[in-house]
Each structure stands twice: as structure tokens, then as C-alpha cells.
């Protein structure tokens, strides 16, 4: 059922039930009044009146005859006059009842006139009998006169009786017809009432049916909803479990910390293990996690500015000492409370790898000195800086004399050994700030910051002497070697390292040309 049709239907049903109620009410009142009328009729009919009592009508004629007989008896001297009076009273009393019965409108006017005349006559006789003359003869004459009068009216009494009788039958019939009509009305009213009650019941049944259907529908919806909720809840729970599993087993440390009091809402195992948190701490604050307080303030300022930190390098205090990590901090609202989501990526392995790679890329594997590329990469910025600031810089380029001969005579391992020894010697003799490099083969370069050419030449000579004295012990014998060195100083006209290098290289060539094992510099 659509949402629209419900109020419409309800309106219609209200209307309909109102109509039914009105109908039932009307029928009930009609039934009630018909019942009342019928009840009146029935109670009237049920009242045992003597109207249908033939005894009375027959009694009238009988009493008339008895009155006649009593007068006969009196005239024959058999009965006293009191008997005559009593019989007249009795006759009169019957006549009175006859009149009472004749109170119907069906009675013809002439009959009424006759009855009233008869009543007067009876009264007249009563008076006459009450005041009979003392003289017996006169009295008898009087009685005989009454007797004659009575005889002349016997036919009239008979007629009256008959009429009243007929009238009574009509009254009874009218009652019968009336009763029948009454009951017919009552029956119709009852039928109407019954029909409206049936209609009402049917309507109620329809209503009940609809209500049931609706409630079933509702129950169905409800259960579907419950199922859905259950499914969703289960799915949610599953997904939450999954997420928790992911977070817990993630190699990245994850923590959720309430901002107001630093209460850790969640800390996954990697983070807990890395930080050495055996028990759930009451409070975790970033300053205590960071190894360097200044770094914390830096990060804090950045967090305030950017509202988040993403992949910030920070050294954290781990259980095994400080470890480099990438720190990500995101603000989050948990149940309306501000919290911080912290991701800690343990960067120590990567750092190490990076260091190793850098080392491999910049270091000569044999001598552990800078390789050529690293030397240029490191030296070039220094040279630029020196050119800008006018700082004296010198460069020594050196080379092992007759290195091919060493290789050929003692084998390549001996050559390598010689190179290593030379590198160790350079490391030993030079300053921290000096940059040593194996440029390739047996050729080395040393950049000397804050060093003039004369100082560089002195250093070069020192290197040459030490190289000459170097004793490389090998299983195959002793290797002796000398080196040649070219020295150049950075000049204000230089634009970069290349110029300086070219001069130093020419100086070296010069030294070789002059007989090796010597230091040369271009003037």
C-alpha cells in the first residue's frame, strides 16, 4: 500500500464506519420503538380482560330472563320484592359491563342511543321497584307493567348483545391485525438492524484483515531490517577485525593517542615492541618518544603550522636505542574528542641500506677512498665556495711509478696491496678536512682546503718520502715503490675544479717526464 493511499483509505473508512454507526443507531432506535409498541400491545393483550369473554354477553340475556322469572315469581306470590330488586340490580350490572364493552367506535350510533335508552329504562325500573306502592295490588300492577315493558325490549337486548358481540370480534380482529403489523414492523427493523450489524461486522473483518496484513508486512519489514542490521553489524565487526588485524600485523607502528591526556587508545604490536612498551602506558607524549628535544620542537611547530606531519624523519627512542624513523601524525576525532593518529615507519634498515649504497657509490672498494665521481661531487662545491670567498685551495695529483711493472712482476694482488698501502698512508698523513680520492688505476688526488701551493708542495714531498719508505710485504717478496706528484693551487681566474685539476695533472706529467719520484708544480 502506498503512503498516499493510507490517509485516503482511512478517511473513506471513517466515513463508512460513521455511516454504518448512524444506520445501526437508526435501526436500533426503530427496533426499540417498534419493540415498545409491540410490548404495549402485547401487555394490553396479555391483560386478561373479559372483552373476549362470551360469558358476559350470554349472562345479559340470562339475567334478563331471570329478572322476568323473578317478576313472575313475585306476581305468583312465590318470591319477595327484594328478589325482584336484586335481579334487576344484577341485570343492570351486566348491562353496565355490556356498555363498557361497547365503547368501540364500530358501534353504530343508533345502537348507542338504544343502549343509553335501555340504561335509563333500567334506572327507571329500579326507581319504580324501590318505591312500590304499599297497596299490593297496585304494586303488582306496577311490576306487571315493568314485566310487559321488559318483554317488549327483550328483542332489543338481544340485538344489542349481538352487536356488542360482533363488535368484540372486530376489536379482537383489529388487535390481531395491529399485532401482526406491529410484528412485521418489528421484524423489518430487526432485519435492518441485523443487516447493519452484519455490515459492520464485515467492515470490522475487512479492517482486521487489513490490519493483520499491514502488521504482517510491518513484521516482515522489521525482520528484514533486523537481518540487515545484523548483517551490517557482522560485516562491520568483520571489517573492524580485519582492520585491527591489518593494523596489528602491519610492520609499521600505529598508535592512536587522545590529545587531551595522551591516553593511548590504540597501539599496535610493532610500535609497542619497537618502543619497548610491555604494558599499556597511561600516557604517551611525543617529547618522550623523540631522541632529540630540538627535533621535537621543530616537528611541533610544523605540526601546528600544517595541522599534520607526513613522513618526517625523526629519531625515536627505541628499546634497542635510538632508531631513525618516518613519523606521520594526523589529527583525528574519536567520539568527538581530538586524537592523533601516529604512524611510525622504522627507517633504520633503509637508512643503513642507503648509507651502504651511498658508500658503494662514492667509495673505491679497494682503497676505501672516495672514487672519482665522489671526489668531483664533493670537491666542486668546495671549490665554488673557495672561489667566492677567496680561500686558498691546493690540489695534489699523484701516481705510482711503474705500477705496470709491479703488476707484471708480483701479480695483480700485489698491485692491489700496494694501492691499499698507499691509501692507508694517505689517510694517516693527511688532515680530516683533506679530501683523498683514488681517481682510477694507480692515480690519486688530494684536495687540500686552506692550503697554499708552497704548503701543498711540502705536504707532497712528505707524501713522496713516506711512499718511498713504504714497505709492502708480500708472500712473493717485498715491493718497493715511488710516487710522482703534481701540485697546483687554485687561482682567482679559475672557474671550477677542472682548471685546477688540469694544471695539477700537467704538473704530474712534468714530474714523470723529469724522472719520476719527485714533486712538480707549474710556475
Amino acid at each position, binding site marked *: 500500500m502506498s503512503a498516499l493511499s493510507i490517509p485516503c483509505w482511512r478517511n473513506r473508512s471513517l466515513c463508512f464506519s460513521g455511516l454504518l454507526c448512524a444506520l445501526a443507531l437508526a435501526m436500533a432506535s426503530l427496533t426499540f420503538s417498534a419493540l415498545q409498541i409491540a410490548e404495549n400491545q402485547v401487555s394490553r393483550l396479555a391483560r386478561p380482560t*373479559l372483552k373476549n369473554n362470551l360469558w358476559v354477553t350470554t349472562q345479559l340475556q340470562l339475567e334478563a330472563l331471570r329478572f322476568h322469572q323473578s317478576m313472575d315469581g313475585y306476581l305468583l306470590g312465590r318470591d319477595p320484592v327484594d328478589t325482584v330488586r336484586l335481579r334487576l340490580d344484577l341485570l343492570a*350490572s351486566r348491562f353496565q359491563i355490556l356498555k363498557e364493552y361497547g365503547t368501540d367506535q364500530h358501534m353504530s350510533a343508533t345502537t348507542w342511543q338504544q343502549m343509553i335508552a335501555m340504561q335509563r329504562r333500567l334506572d327507571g325500573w329500579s326507581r319504580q321497584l324501590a318505591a312500590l306502592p304499599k297497596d299490593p295490588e297496585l304494586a303488582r300492577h306496577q311490576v306487571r307493567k315493568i314485566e310487559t315493558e321488559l318483554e317488549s325490549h327483550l328483542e332489543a337486548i338481544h340485538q344489542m348483545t349481538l352487536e356488542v358481540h360482533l363488535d368484540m370480534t372486530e376489536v379482537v380482529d383489529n388487535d390481531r391485525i395491529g399485532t401482526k403489523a406491529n410484528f412485521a414492523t418489528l421484524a423489518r427493523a430487526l432485519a435492518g438492524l441485523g443487516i447493519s450489524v452484519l455490515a459492520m461486522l464485515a467492515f470490522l473483518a475487512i479492517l482486521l484483515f487489513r490490519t493483520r496484513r499491514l502488521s504482517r508486512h510491518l513484521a516482515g519489514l522489521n525482520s528484514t531490517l533486523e537481518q540487515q542490521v545484523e548483517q551490517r553489524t557482522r560485516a562491520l565487526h568483520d571489517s573492524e577485525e580485519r582492520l585491527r588485524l591489518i593494523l596489528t600485523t602491519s610492520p609499521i607502528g600505529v598508535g592512536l593517542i587522545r590529545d587531551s591526556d595522551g591516553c593511548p587508545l590504540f597501539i599496535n604490536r610493532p610500535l609497542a615492541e619497537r618502543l619497548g612498551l610491555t604494558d599499556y602506558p597511561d600516557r604517551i607524549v611525543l617529547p618522550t618518544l623523540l631522541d632529540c628535544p630540538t627535533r621535537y620542537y621543530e616537528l611541533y611547530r610544523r605540526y601546528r603550522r600544517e595541522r599534520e606531519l607526513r613522513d618526517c624523519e625523526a629519531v625515536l627512542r627505541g628499546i634497542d636505542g635510538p632508531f631513525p624513523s618516518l613519523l606521520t601524525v594526523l589529527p583525528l576525532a574519536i567520539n568527538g574528542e581530538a586524537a592523533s593518529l601516529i604512524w611510525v615507519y622504522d627507517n633504520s634498515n633503509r637508512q643503513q641500506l642507503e648509507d651502504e649504497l651511498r658508500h658503494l657509490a662514492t667509495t673505491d672498494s679497494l682503497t676505501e677512498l672516495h672514487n672519482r665521481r665522489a671526489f668531483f661531487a664533493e670537491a666542486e662545491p668546495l671549490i665554488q665556495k673557495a672561489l667566492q670567498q677567496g680561500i686558498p685551495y691546493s690540489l695534489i695529483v699523484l701516481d705510482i711509478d711503474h705500477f705496470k711493472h709491479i703488476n707484471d712482476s708480483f701479480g695483480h694482488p700485489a698491485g692491489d696491496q700496494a694501492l691499499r698501502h698507499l691509501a692507508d698512508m694517505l689517510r694517516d698523513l693527511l688532515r680530516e678536512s683533506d679530501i683523498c680520492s683514488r681517481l682510477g688505476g694507480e692515480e690519486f688526488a688530494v684536495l687540500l682546503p686552506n692550503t697554499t701551493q708552497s704548503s701543498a708542495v711540502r705536504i707532497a714531498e712528505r707524501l713522496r718520502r713516506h711512499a718511498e719508505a713504504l714497505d709492502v710485504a708480500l708472500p712473493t717478496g717485498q715491493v718497493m715503490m715511488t710516487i710522482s706528484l703534481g701540485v697546483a693551487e687554485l687561482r682567482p681566474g679559475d672557474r671550477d675544479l677542472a682548471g685546477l685539476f688540469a694544471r695539477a695533472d700537467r704538473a704530474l706529467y712534468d714530474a714523470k717526464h723529469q724522472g719520476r719520484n719527485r714533486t712538480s708544480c707549474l710556475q
Partner: protein
Amino acid sequence: MTPFSFSPLSAPVLLALFSTGCAYAADLNVDLNKPALVISAKATKPMTFSLQQLSTLPIRRITTSTQWHHAPQQWEGVSIKALLGKLGATGTSVYVAALNDYAIDIAVADIIKYDPILAYKVDGHYMPVRDKGPLVVIYPYDEYPALNIQFYYNQAVWQVNHITVR
């Protein structure tokens, strides 16, 4: 008479019309000293009572409607139970006869249960023979609905003049 227009008024109105016509008969025509009732019982001589004599006995009044009169009337007379008790008459039924030879048996059980009276006055007036007098058996019809059946209406004998205890 149409079924719905029954008027109980028509009969009493006409009754009243006629009863005025014979009003002279009431009271005036009732001789209180004349013998009005004979009571016969087993083993006793028949006893005769005038209305005067009956009036001296304890009065019992019943206000009730009757088959003749829808409106309640006050009937005044002597309790049949008390009368028979006073006379020491015993039996199972009382045969009540009227001047016009109407007669009916009344069970003593009913007399004891409903205590009907032998009324000599209605609404304070003695009743002449013309008006159902001088004595009428009256049950308390209005008091006991069970009495409103023809069986007990038949026992409302008027113009009573003889009672036989059997």
C-alpha cells in the same frame, strides 16, 4: 382502532360518563345491615354476615389495578385468611359463589400465600350490586406479578354472596 393508536383512555372516560348516570345507586343503595354473605364450613352451621358485621373485623387494604380498572384502586375489606381463621374453618379449598351463580374454587394455599381480601369498599365507597357489590374477592395483583394470569383473574369473584370451605 389502528394498531398504533390504542388509547387506554377511551374506556375509562366512557366508564366515568356512565357511572355518573347511576351514581345515585352508590352507597344509598347499599343496605349495610342486610345479610350479604353466608359462610358454610364442614361441621359448622352456615353463618350469615352483613356488611356492618364484616366492617367490625380487622380491615385489610389492597391497592391494585384489576382486570376491570387499569388504574390502581384502593380496595378495603376483610382478609379471607383472617376471616376463616377467626371462624376456625378448615379445608383445602374455598368455593366462592356469586349472586349470578358464578362460582369458583380458590385454593387455601393461594389464600395463605397471597392473602386476598373480601372487599366491601372501593376507593372508600361501598359497592352496590350494580357496581359489582356488595363483596368482591381481590388479590394483590400489583404486588405479585405471578397473579396476573387469567387463573387468578377468574378468582376475582364479584357480587360474592356465599363462601363454602371444603
